[in-house]
């Protein structure tokens, strides 16, 4: 088995052209970035609104829990039946998959901002929108980005479904392997999906270090030392 896997990996044929590993990895990555990016455009503003106003929190929690329970494959199949084959149903399925984690992270982030800080901001004369931008959002960033990371991990793992609707990505390699009974090919595809997940998560961790304000990192450190 291991030998078969190595043989597959070292076969230069598998590394060339549109169906090769590099191209499919890029395509896979592209699906993930586009769907998580789209999910952020929807979930972050919504999460900020809910966290800031405290309105609609229960409804959103219920809906996003229901969304988590949806089987992505079934969802994508349904979307294909509605929209026909193509990028849209696959990406839409992934977006729906990514939204709950990002929404939950954003809401939790805003909720986690200590009330005395928000109160101080109000007392200093910040308007509602200034409080959101200048105080709540920066302080929500650690949890918000945490939400994005877990959404991204889910999406990288699940983007294989794109192959079911005749698209590319590492799922293509996996499904083709399944079709012809080449298990070493399926193992290789799974391996690349896992590696991609780790790599993407590392990149996001790096971005998190860059955008989370230094003061918050210091505060978290001080808390750890103190307890």
């Amino acid at each position, binding site marked *: 088995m291991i030998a078969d896997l190595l043989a597959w990996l070292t076969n230069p044929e598998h590394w060339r052209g549109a169906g090769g590993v590099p191209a499919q990895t890029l395509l896979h990555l592209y699906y993930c970035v586009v769907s998580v990016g789209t999910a952020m455009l929807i979930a972050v503003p919504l999460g900020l609104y809910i966290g800031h106003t405290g309105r609609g929190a229960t409804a959103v929690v219920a809906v996003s829990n229901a969304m988590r329970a949806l089987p992505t494959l079934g969802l994508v199949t349904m979307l294909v039946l509605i929209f026909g084959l193509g990028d849209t149903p696959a990406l839409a399925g992934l977006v729906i998959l990514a939204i709950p984690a990002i929404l939950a992270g954003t809401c939790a982030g805003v909720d986690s901002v200590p009330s*005395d*800080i928000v*109160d*101080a*901001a*109000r*007392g*200093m*004369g*910040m*308007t509602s929108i*200034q409080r959101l931008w200048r*105080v709540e959002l*920066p*302080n929500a960033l650690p949890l918000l980005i945490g939400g994005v990371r877990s959404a991204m991990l889910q999406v990288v793992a699940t983007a294989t479904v794109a192959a079911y609707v005749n698209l590319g990505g590492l799922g293509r390699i996996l499904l083709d392997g399944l079709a012809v009974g080449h298990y070493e090919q399926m193992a290789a595809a799974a391996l690349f999906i896992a590696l991609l997940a780790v790599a993407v998560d590392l990149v996001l961790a790096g971005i998190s270090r860059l955008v989370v*304000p*230094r*003061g*918050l990192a*210091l*505060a978290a*450190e*001080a808390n750890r030392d103190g307890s």
Partner: protein
Amino acid sequence: MLEFRSVRKQYENGTVAVQELSMSAETGTITVLVGPSGCGKTTLMRMVNRMIEPSSGAVLVDGTDVREFDAARLRRGIGYVIQQAGLFPHRTVLDNVATVPLLSGCRRREARTRAAELLDRVGLPADLGRRYPAQLSGGQQQRVGVARALAADPPVLLMDEPFSAVDPVVRAGLQDELLRLQEELGKTVLFVTHDIDEAIKLGEKVAVLRQGGHLAQYAEPDALLAEPADDFVTSFVGRDRGYRRLSFRDSRRLRPEATDTVHIGDTSADVPSRAGWVLVLDAHRRPRGWLPPEAAVDGQLTEDQLVAGGSLHVEGTSLRGALDSALSAPSGLGVVVDGDGGYVGVVTARQVLDLIEEHRSSVTAEGVAP
């Protein structure tokens, strides 16, 4: 002037936090709201910057109802310091202090220059400005909180238990600092505390509130100690109010007397033959401690041969300090020093008590109630 006109606040859950309360705070003075926990101090204070709207009645700042201002704008014009400082953890100290000027449209550079000045004002080193709140001690955070409230140079300052989260020594330092700042700035300060000692130390006038937001007494601190309005105020100001009242008596008429002194480094030959305690000074004539009666000095006199001294009484300050210096000294002689800490003389508890008695009889003779 800050004026509360029959304000009342009932929360949605039915709690009446403030009950038909009227009082006013003079411009340029520190007015303290004091009372037990839950008596409505915070509620009352937050009506001034419209963080809370009264259920009825009105709050006026210099004669204008605060409801006539846009709330956010009003708040930028009123300094606000809260209990745990409430600093923004994601901003540097300097940017925290610059918050309100930036909100009011000040340029960043200008706002930061101003912020740096304020750090200096509240006694913080300039390089602290680059740090984050998580890197400061509690006392430093409170100072930053005060600097932030002062940044836009507001005429009115609201302070809600600003010093309650720090230890007593730091708290005393911050209180002195506030008094010094107030001397320079002359703001209209509304200060909330549940600590009667803090109220008496800081307030030019003190409002004692009772549970349910009733104003039990509104008076100068001396009057509060001398004539508490009712049993509630009496028990709230505490047992030793007679002693604490001495804080308001100056000691100018106290006449310090000379006593035997020696210096650190003197040899046994210099030490007077004596039956009583001898005060030991250093080269700058600052008191270092006492030499017990009949104690042998062999060779040079050093610090470790001394008994620690009591509290020092700075010339011209209150009789409370004078009495305490005598009571706390091992020799029973309170040491009086000048502003630089140099030895002036000593006083006994008897002298202080005589002065108090003298004052009482002169006041009674004039027909004024004691």
